[in-house]
């Protein structure tokens, strides 16, 4: 009896602790969401002056902000596509073929994962300056592709680990050529890994601040745009856009992975 009571108390304590951690995780986001409805018009846009939807309308007049958001999305989509194609091919090739320098490539893949982003940022900056590639959209995409590839490869590789290559042989025995086999057999089997890798690449790309900070030139991404004004006070239209992005991503995930919240889904 006593033990049961103690168990119950322990459980309650656990729930309380987890709630506090979730509060901590969501606190700064709720500040942003609430402030996006704040009617204040004077810096630093902090004190509450009443509820308004104005910022969601004014947002569209702030062309440089909307443009920066567009840049972020273009970079994220293009780099995700490139990194996913290059990474998937690389993972399959490295799994299947032996060649000289394989260990080196393998080792290089871990660098973007463990090294502080700032080191990657400045090393790309120096090399772009050395070979006179002007900083802008191109350098941003090159940088994002670079740090996304390893994550795609690791995801695809995890999928390859349980891969039975005899189905490929079966496909070829039945007369399919290499290319057909790749598209009809290999790709569908690897699809979950590829998709997971692509999703991770996309997330990393839109979240990146540090590496972009060193290679952006005149083309500003959304976070870089925010960075300019962060000390003097970010106008509530930025909060409004951030809120829209957050709602958009949550909707996207609920719609694409709706089964996540479905009753019967397990793992």
């Amino acid at each position, binding site marked *: 009896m006593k033990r049961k009571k103690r168990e119950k108390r322990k459980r309650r304590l656990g729930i309380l602790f987890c709630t506090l951690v979730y509060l901590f995780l969501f606190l700064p986001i709720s500040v942003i969401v609430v402030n996006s409805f704040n009617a204040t018009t004077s810096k630093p846009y902090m004190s509450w002056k009443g509820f308004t939807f104005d910022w969601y309308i004014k947002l569209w007049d702030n062309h440089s902000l909307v443009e920066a958001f567009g840049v972020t999305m273009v970079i994220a989509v293009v780099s995700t596509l490139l990194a996913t194609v290059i990474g998937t091919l690389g993972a399959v*090739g490295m799994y299947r073929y032996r060649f000289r320098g394989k260990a080196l490539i393998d080792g*290089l893949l871990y660098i973007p994962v463990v090294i502080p982003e700032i080191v990657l940022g400045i090393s790309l900056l120096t090399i772009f300056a050395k070979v006179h590639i002007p900083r802008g959209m191109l350098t941003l995409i090159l940088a994002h592709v670079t740090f996304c590839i390893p994550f795609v490869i690791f995801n695809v590789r995890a999928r390859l680990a349980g891969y039975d290559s005899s189905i490929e042989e079966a496909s070829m025995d039945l007369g399919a050529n290499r290319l057909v086999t790749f598209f009809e057999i290999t790709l569908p089997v690897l699809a979950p890994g590829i998709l997971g890798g692509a999703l991770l690449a996309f997330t990393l790309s839109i979240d990146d601040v540090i590496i972009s900070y060193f290679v952006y030139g005149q083309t500003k991404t959304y*976070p870089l745009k925010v960075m300019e004004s962060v000390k003097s006070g970010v106008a509530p239209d930025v909060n409004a856009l951030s809120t829209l992005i957050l709602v958009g991503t949550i909707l996207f995930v609920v719609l694409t992975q709706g089964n996540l*919240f479905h009753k019967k889904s397990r793992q």
Partner: protein
Amino acid sequence: MARKRSKHEFRANTLPALLTVGPVTAVMVLLIAVPLIYVAVMSFCSIDEFYNVKFDFTLDNYVRLANANYLKIYVQSLVIALVTTILCILIGYPFAYIIARTKSRKKRILYMLVIIPFWTNSLIRIYGWRSFLGSSGWLNTLLVKTGIAAEPIDLLYRQGTTILGMVYCLIPFMILPLYTAIEKLDGSLLEASSDLGARPAATFFEVILPLTSGGIFSGSLMVFIPCLGYFFVSDILGGGNSDVIGNLIERQFQSGNNWPLGAALSIILIAVTLVLVKIYQKLGGDMDSLGV
């Protein structure tokens, strides 16, 4: 005959290998290896009066970095990273344990709730903290209105605030590997331990902790190292006494315009990273559990 064979060999092996591995090799060599080597070379260079990099060999940059002012910041950086890592373990472990051992279907939702905040850009979330803690922010307004504080307390520009920001940004990198490690725990082992008379504390230290230490090690690595470079966190939340090595590097590449000195600082950061990765591997850490 031999020629025909080699042509077949080319089509069967060399060509597909080139097509699949070629692009990734090009990117990794040209955009990872070459730039890092170039940074290493640059760290032995100097600058002329127009801040252009002069390619002569000198150890000046490293001598400058051995100066007491810089040493102070390295130590400060390591302390901030260490405290951040410890806090992430202390908060992240019990948290990951509880959600990983949840049996109901709420488990996946609880897991997703950890990830959702991180879909908002990290810079914007750090700005959210700045708004919350600032002198006219929510917390101060609350403190003043309730009479707990007579006037707003300056919570920004402190080392503790930087650490708060670091913990906030990096804690998912601790929670997620711990979650994976704890989820893999075999429940029957825990039962066996308690059946054999072990107290809960003994079960924890003798069974659970050793079996999940891999998660702690990889989480710690993924928290500690980025912490040394997250210059924007200390920039936005911290004051003068919360610079990390990343701030020093950033300044040399932006306002300071002394790229060779910044390159030498980066080499130090790389060296620290390598040492930590070596320790991680010595402890039995698996490199593949870092990426995903």
